[in-house]
């Protein structure tokens, strides 16, 4: 049998990618995910810019994970310069980070993935047929966005986070109001778990390596060690031993591999590696969704995102309680002493592990930058999944086969404009 699937610019994903699959005489000849996004060149553009600007420039790598990039950027500069953060700064950073995870996961589950399960091309027809579902998603996104706005001004391209601290602080009243809204949101969160439990997740199993950040006593989003489900766990500075990036001709984004031909990052990898650190309510949600580590079905990445939605709401409430207990204080950012240095910042943004590595000159200007993006790390795994999936679906009608492949791509929640952040190797 001969079949060719060519999807130009997959819809309902962030960024531009093409699916190319060709089956000839029943054998798989071509199976690729081409990243055709225009190259962005951020690493090259960061050179010569002040370390204080780096987080504001790099947040523009991506609209969905802007806060994530800004955070990784700040951590890279702070680790390079040896800047310590106050407890308040760390809590505020975690709080706004949760806001972004929530915003992104709700967008992905409700607006990018759910339409496929409900047989429609987008969330727009759902606004007429299932308005309560759409309004719930918008309501949750609004809370997530407002959470970020209170702490940093806005989630897309945060303003108030700066090296060593913040340039603006929320009031106790603002935090109390958010806390109440988060508590009220539990109804929407539970409804999201119920929705997740009814969605007909496709059956697809392929064991792979799962890589994420790890901390012993919290579900790691900011900082941590790099953990692989195949072992070992390494300090973040040794990231290159894990990522091993390489260029492929059909993609403007690099691929990565560690112990196997590919590995996966993202909510599923975090869920598999850090299940113990989840909030109890999140663990209950996992039970309702019927998932527990080790999950090896890529499509369940979105189910793991639902579990994280539960976790982030609960953890945000706890963080606000901790902040209110001691009160918010206007603090100057921690002082900085310039020197030639380099440092690594790591975060788990919605789609997976993000690494920013900066080299800073004695004048405070960057001389080099390296960014390893979650989606870069997933592309090789996506192609491995495609190769495993195609033989099982090639007997289907063309349209059905195409949809299965598109759903596989969407399951990764790829952030393609981010992934063309190819890196540079050395600064000097």
């Amino acid at each position, binding site marked *: 049998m001969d079949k060719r699937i060519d999807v130009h610019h997959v819809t309902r994903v962030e960024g531009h990618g093409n699916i190319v699959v060709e089956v000839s005489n029943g054998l798989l000849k071509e199976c690729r995910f081409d990243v055709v996004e225009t190259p962005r060149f951020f690493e*090259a553009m960061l*050179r010569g810019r002040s370390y204080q600007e780096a987080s504001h420039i790099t947040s*523009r790598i*991506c609209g969905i994970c802007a806060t994530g990039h800004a955070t990784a950027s700040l951590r890279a500069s702070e680790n390079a310069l040896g800047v310590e953060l106050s407890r308040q700064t760390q809590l505020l950073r975690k709080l706004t980070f949760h806001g972004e995870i929530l915003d992104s996961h709700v967008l992905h589950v409700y607006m990018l993935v759910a339409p496929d399960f409900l047989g429609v091309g987008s969330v727009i027809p759902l606004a007429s047929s299932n308005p309560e579902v759409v309004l719930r998603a918008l309501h949750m996104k609004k809370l997530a966005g407002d959470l970020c706005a209170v702490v940093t001004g806005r989630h897309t391209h945060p303003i108030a986070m*700066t090296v060593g601290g913040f340039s603006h602080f929320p009031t106790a009243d603002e935090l109390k109001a958010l806390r109440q809204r988060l508590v009220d949101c539990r109804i929407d969160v539970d409804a999201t778990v119920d929705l997740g439990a009814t969605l007909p997740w496709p059956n697809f199993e392929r064991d792979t390596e799962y890589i994420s950040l790890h901390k012993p006593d919290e579900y790691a989003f900011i900082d941590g060690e790099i953990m692989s489900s195949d072992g070992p766990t390494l300090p973040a500075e040794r990231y290159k031993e894990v990522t091993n990036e390489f260029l492929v001709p059909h993609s403007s984004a690099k691929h990565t591999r560690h112990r196997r031909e590919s590995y996966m990052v993202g909510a599923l990898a975090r869920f598999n590696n850090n299940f113990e650190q989840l909030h109890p309510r999140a663990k209950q949600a996992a039970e309702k969704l019927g998932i527990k580590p080790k999950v090896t079905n890529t499509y369940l990445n979105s189910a793991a995102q639902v579990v994280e939605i539960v976790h982030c709401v609960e953890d945000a409430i706890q963080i606000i309680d901790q902040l209110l207990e001691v009160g918010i204080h206007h603090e100057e950012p921690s002082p900085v002493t310039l020197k030639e240095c380099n440092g690594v910042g790591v975060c788990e943004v919605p789609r997976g592990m993000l690494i920013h590595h900066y080299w800073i000159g004695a004048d405070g200007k960057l001389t080099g930058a390296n960014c390893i993006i979650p989606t870069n790390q997933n592309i090789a795994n996506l192609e491995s999944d495609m190769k495993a999936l195609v033989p099982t679906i090639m007997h289907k009608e063309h349209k059905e086969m195409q949809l299965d492949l598109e759903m596989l791509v969407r399951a990764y929640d790829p952030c393609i404009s981010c992934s063309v952040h190819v890196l540079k190797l050395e600064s000097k």
Partner: protein
Amino acid sequence: MSTNGKPKIAFFDFTSCEGCQLTVLDSLQTHPELLQVVEIVQFREAMSEKGEDYLVAFIEGSCTRQSDEARLQKIREQAALVVALGTCAHLGGVNTLKALHPLEDVRRYVYGDLASHYETYDARPIDAVIKVDFAIPGCPIDRDEFVACVKALLLGKKPPIPDYPVCVECKLKENTCLYKLGMTCLGPISRAGCKAICPSYGQSCEACRGYITNPNDSSMRNVLAEHGLTMEDIESMYTMFTTYQVQQKLMQK
């Protein structure tokens, strides 16, 4: 046009972070009724259907390669109105920082020996390639301004974009001027409409919305120098979003 009285609109993205389109989606949180008054026929990030019979095209992102020019021209041929959405499309934006380095050097730095495989040229606003009817500025756009602009366009009016400086909005909010706090800011020559969000959160305005008509650029530079900025620092402030305008000497945007 349409048979149900709703104008058909479409969203396109070029080289961008897609943050402006995400802000468009976020505007539905406060204005879900927007979906009742327009028919979205193409919006790759949010929907699978692809209609080509749009009346109004919103374009996010700058043009950073030769082959994108044809795509822009095709959109211009189809749409009665082309609206630049956000700083990248309007001014070139952060993408234009690339022009501060020799292009060949940038290509080699990122892609090494495979540099020639990846097509790129100097990033530019879309009106360097096609005629643009209106622009909604900002990095990202302000969602309230977006809603106001859509309302105006639906009523056949020009989108209400201010032509006075950010300082006006800071004063209306009773912010303490950043200059009084020992900082500097491009507010005096930058276009308002963002509610002075950056100064309100303790950061300098860096003109992501572009400059007002006939900005007093020389006085602005004098003020910055008087407040301790070197020539290099001043160039940094000006080039964060508007490298293209600085290099092309287009301070009227």
